[in-house]
């Protein structure tokens, strides 16, 4: 395969967009802007380093102890192994800390008026009055307190096998935390960890597109006109919203 083959789908896209735009005659103002923005922004930094800068990040929401827990937990939920980087290397802990500054984390996207029925059946969906920031704060404090009470080392200093046992107990709801249902804490943590592993790097996770590369997701390519019918492996590596290539 010639070495510039992976560029073709991208150029294809630009060509199609250019030919498409004038076709839309009866349309809203500002239409052309979309196209020129795409054209004006060439793909940057083609070489994403395998080694990411996830380690250097300073958390804004989590305390030092909380962040140590978070880093240890995400690295067990999606571990680095023979397939490649895990959630820690992908920057999932950093991603979760950044998310804590968004309206999502303060519960502003949800209906949060009472009365609340924390014991409602699971079929009725989320019924806690806690937002993600509170779930993390209370959940992490609960787990750290539990480790202390058991006379164990802090979570992040435990062996991988011990950490996995704690996480499994949270997942099953066997580890009872005082202020937050363990299952609610665990499912939020797992959901956000996956987000940090698979989101577009623009959100601070999936650094180097390590998550996408491992499963064969091409990211922001979003143009498969010539591929729809083919029973073949899609050969092009992912690109990101910012135009990075893996």
């Amino acid at each position, binding site marked *: 395969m010639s070495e510039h083959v992976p560029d073709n789908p991208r150029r294809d896209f630009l060509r199609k967009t250019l030919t498409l735009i004038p076709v839309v005659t009866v349309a809203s103002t500002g239409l052309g802007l979309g196209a020129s923005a*795409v054209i004006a922004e060439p793909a940057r930094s083609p070489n994403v380093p395998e080694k990411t800068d996830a380690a250097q990040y300073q958390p804004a929401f989590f305390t030092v102890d909380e962040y140590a827990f978070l880093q240890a937990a995400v690295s067990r939920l999606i571990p680095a192994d023979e397939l490649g980087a895990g959630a820690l290397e992908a920057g999932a802990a950093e991603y979760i800390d950044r998310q804590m500054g968004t309206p999502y984390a303060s519960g502003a*996207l949800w209906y949060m008026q009472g*009365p609340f029925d924390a014991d409602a059946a699971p*079929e*009725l969906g989320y019924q806690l009055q806690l937002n993600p920031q509170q779930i993390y704060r209370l959940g992490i404090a609960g787990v750290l307190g539990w480790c202390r009470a058991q006379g164990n080392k802090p979570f992040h200093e435990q062996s991988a096998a011990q950490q996995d046992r704690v996480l499994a107990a949270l997942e099953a709801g066997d580890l009872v935390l005082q202020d937050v249902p363990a299952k609610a804490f665990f499912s939020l943590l797992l959901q956000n960890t996956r987000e940090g592993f698979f*989101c577009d790097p623009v959100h601070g996770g999936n650094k180097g597109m390590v998550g996408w590369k491992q499963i064969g997701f091409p990211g922001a390519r979003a143009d498969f006109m010539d591929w*729809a*019918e083919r029973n073949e492996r899609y050969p092009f590596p992912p690109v990101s919203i910012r135009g990075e290539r893996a």
Partner: protein
Amino acid sequence: MANTLKKVDAVIVGFGWTGAIMAKELTEAGLQVVALERGPMQDTYPDGSYPQVIDELTYSVRKKLFLDLSKETVTIRHTVNDVALPYRQLGAFLPGKGVGGAGLHWSGVHFRVDPIELRMRSHYEERYGKSFIPQDMTIQDFGVTYEELEPYFDFAEKVFGTSGQAWTVKGEVVGRGKGGNPYAPDRSNPFPLVSQKNVVSAQLFQQATSALGYHPYNLPSANTSGPYTNPYGAQMGPCNFCGFCSGYVCYMYSKASPNVNILPALRQVPNFELRANAHVLRVNLDDSKQRATGVTYIDAQGRELEQPAELVILAAFQFNNVRLMLLSGIGKPYDPVKNEGVVGRNFAYQNMGTVKAFFDKDVHTNNFIGAGGNGVAIDDFNADNFDHGPHGFVGGSPMWVNQAGSRPIAGVANPPGTPAWGSAWKKATADYYTHQLSMDAHGAHQSYRGNYLDLDPTYRDAYGLPLLRMTFDWQDNDIRMNQFMVDKLSKIAQAMNPKSIAVLGKQVKEHFNTASYQTTHLNGGAIMGTDPATSALNRYLQCWDVHNVFVPGASAFPQGLGYNPTGLVAALTYWSARAIREQYLKNPGPLVAA
């Protein structure tokens, strides 16, 4: 105290599919029309511009385009004896909130209707006898026939730029061996565009269902198979299977939407005005309670404004239409105990079953490729295309592969038994993400006495008004039908020779789960019909009680369809608009004598 604005001929509440269609029709009739949309202005630019729109976290996961639950939601309970709790996080259904409504971020499967589903009760009574229908099942006829609606289906497809393959056109078979559906009713014209290409998963479904003796056909899709110009002069480019379709604004101008297909034409006419960020609180009635005088709404600055109008169109989506009627005192609220009243009755949904098949590395389903309306389906178990007699349940289900594109955060599925985290999860995800397919049994859902809508006694919206309460659960008929369909689907999956399959069907006594996505195909609550004692609207979608209020939308369906609803919603809206233009405006009053 509300400020009163200058009176207009017609005010439309909501600017999604039904609002846009009504706006176009009524401005064509020369009326001065104002549309009030509660959400923000939205359009292909900037909301669908590449590359920012290719962002799974923002759109599928944080659900940027959907209903803002912090302002208003619904409450849900399973039976009249339970306390309803709010739908606090988006789960089972994903209503729209801004200009274009859910029509801006729908998928685009664009069906008509199976003719018997418009005559549901009559048809079942004729074929199987009255006693075949369970006592508490409240299915009804729509009061309009497929033949009457055919010209409106035809026109809506031309407006949407729909891709598909006809089976017969004016009685002549044209679709054999080409992907036509032998169970489809006759058409006056072919589809505006040929069918889309079929992705590998759909090809596998096509082969497996053919081998089993079924009749696979190409899904009719409002994603374009080629360039297209609609009757309003709006132009569309070909869909490229980008895979960011359902829940996203189409950056290619390929998915039909009110914004792409209708709004550009409305922008050209002086007698139309669209006001975004205009949240309608209620319809105002005169002292007789038989005539609406206009609506009251809150604007972006929080001011309460009154918009007087001769004609009021509720085009706010199924459950919002019902809520606005209840908040305004239009029509008698339904009482499930006495089985009396009309507003809120016959609330129905979609009865979904899903089977996933996982393959070896030599089958490349490449699930990131897809388009929302695209796929291959069978109707062998839809509507009444098979004998229900021996099975003893009411309703049918189309089945299909409809690969809209699945992305890694929300779209990863692994074979049953795979752990949810750790190296085993990681390996399975890497092994299967591009080697799996998903099939649905998109079952029709019937209406029952116990499933209905009213106002919640406790919870309120950001404006202090009661939320709508859904009382809803799966009934025995639903579960038995679902199990029948899922069994057929599993056999289709097995015929593909996969490594493993995952079956997601309903269990006996299973309750409606508000947290897991079903569809946004909610029906009923303000149903059309021939009898004012059992329907809120007449066959032209006109309120029986308040003749200058018309209510288009799936709220008018007396029960759910096997197919996706929007094709019928659009055709009924054009049908209603035609009645307004040709009959009502000449002689305002009830179009059908009560």
